[in-house]
């Protein structure tokens, strides 16, 4: 995929527009739905990069499981409907030009950049990915299980009812 192909812009729009909507929406349910759309867009990016396994897991895990969990969490915890709004509002006047300037600079520099890592791998397969994960990147892969462990411990610590009276 390259900057010149129309499909690039289509897929980018599929990621960026829902991402902006997700932040801008005042209703958390709409935000969550925009997030699901954004996740699907990311899966599309993986497809255009020939990373089918990643695209499939993106759909299964993020779109299928995580989004549904988040929707449940919102519906179960919200006391009153509609009253939730943005809390970063006061800074938006400064954030907008700063973000826009950053986007322009990044766009100009990265648009004409020469990357030597090259384009998407020619012959990606699940076997190749597995061999990378379990050989070269075996250590970070195993370490990631500790990150997940901490996340689970954290969820229990923050959300579970007090153990003692």
């Amino acid at each position, binding site marked *: 995929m390259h900057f010149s192909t129309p499909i690039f812009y289509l897929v980018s729009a599929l990621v960026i527009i829902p991402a902006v909507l997700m932040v801008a929406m005042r209703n958390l349910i709409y935000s969550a739905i925009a997030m699901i759309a954004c996740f699907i867009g990311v899966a599309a990016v993986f497809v255009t990069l020939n990373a089918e396994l990643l695209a499939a897991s993106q759909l299964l895990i993020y779109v299928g499981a995580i989004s549904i969990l988040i929707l449940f969490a919102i519906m179960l915890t919200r006391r009153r409907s509609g009253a939730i709004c943005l809390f970063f509002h006061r800074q938006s006047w400064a954030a907008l030009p700063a973000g826009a300037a950053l986007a322009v600079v990044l766009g100009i520099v*990265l648009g004409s950049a020469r*990357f*030597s890592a090259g384009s998407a791998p020619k012959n990606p397969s699940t076997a190749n990915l597995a061999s990378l994960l379990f*050989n070269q*990147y*075996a250590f*970070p892969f195993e370490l990631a299980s500790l*990150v997940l462990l901490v996340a689970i411990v*954290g969820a229990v610590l923050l959300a579970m009812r007090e153990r003692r009276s």
Partner: protein
Amino acid sequence: MQHDVVAIVPELMLVAAALVLLLIDPFLPAKGRRGLSWLGIMACLPAAASVWLARSQQFSTFSHGIALDGFAVFFKILLLAVAALAMLLSEKHLARNGRLLGDYYALVLLATVGMMVMASAIDLATFFVGLELMALSSYLLAGFFRHQLRSIEASLKYFLTGSFASAILLFGMALLYGLTGSTNYQQISIAIGSGSLDGHVIVIAVVLLLGGFAFKVAAAPFHGWAPDVYQGAPTPAAAFLSVGPKIAAFAAIIKFFTIMLGSEQARWVPLMIVVAIATMLIGATMALLQHDLKRMLAFSSIAHVGYLLLALIAAGQSHSNFGSSAILFYLAAYAAMNMGAFGVLVFLANSARFNDSLDEMAGLARRFPGAAGVMAVLMFSLAGIPPTAGFLAKFYLFASVVDAGYAWLAVIGVLFSVVSAFYYLRVIVYMYMREPEPEVAAVMEPGGGRSWDLSLGLGLATAVVIVLGVLPAPVLNAAQDAVAKILGS
């Protein structure tokens, strides 16, 4: 593809201890949880011993993802000491707030594993997973007193800003990978050194990396989270968070900027000078205005990061190891004095109804002579007054800056250091020369039990501060040795 487990034995020990803590905690009655901290502390001792036994090793393993070199040995021992000290300070405070849970120590240990991985990583992927392990545990430690609104607020702020910082850092790392086609520090360094890469993209990558790291070490202009987080977090957790993540981040910063981007120093040094001066300015001036001691210590730690960045500039500019070893020595001194200062606040909060305000320090010398004495030594050290560790650390640090040809930067650093002496000495003046207001006096009556592990922790921190100030040679030699034996330089 040799995977040499020797390099990660200390990490495995900490993980095992953390898992045991998580497993046995639910089966213990409330009283049985006393002494759980010792399980964590005792795990740090054999871990440190195994690091020490492997100190002469010099190899990389896990497909060049982890280095076992002198540099990693220095940082791992320092981080283990910080973790053990943090656990020594914690128990009583957790118990008083009804949150004496094994999970706390498990999180401290897992955060330490993440930090140790950050310090020994020589691969971007390994480094990043270590960073996330540390960060995620830190957010939880900040919010450990979940029934206190301020603690939860600290956790949320830390999580949001920290996630952004991680994303920015990751963006910079992705650009480096895109440019060089490798995640290995050494390969990246060789590719960048060849000079055939797109210079504009390198600049962008440097800016993003600098921004991300500035968040992680609370350097201006990305320091805003630090005072809120340290103030809201449980005080012993704040002690840990104000030291551990900074040590680990500086280990990575030294590798990133002086080795990986060493040939690009002309691009990052000017930027780093601006960040360092802004950090010292904001840290020193804002600390003057604080009445809350935890916020004061937060801004003071921001100022200390400014000094450390000065030494980083020296390390990048000159080809000697002076600057980097000054950073290592400074980090060791900073760890002892900063954790000690937070530890005194823990002690006061345990012994009286103490709210971390400066007014409550008035007349402390009469009510708590021991705590006041310890606090005085630590404040002298933080201010950089001899014969304490803080003085020698600052001395070496500014000497390295002068040595690299930045005498004017050293002068600025010393000036801010003089400003900072004011707010440290003010604490001493309050403790020894002020009479407390009547309502404060009522609040600050000694009461509540002491805990001997907290006293032990404070004693150790103070001893380190004094010993490093009088006999710096062993640690200083270790620091120089560590920098000389850094793999891939």
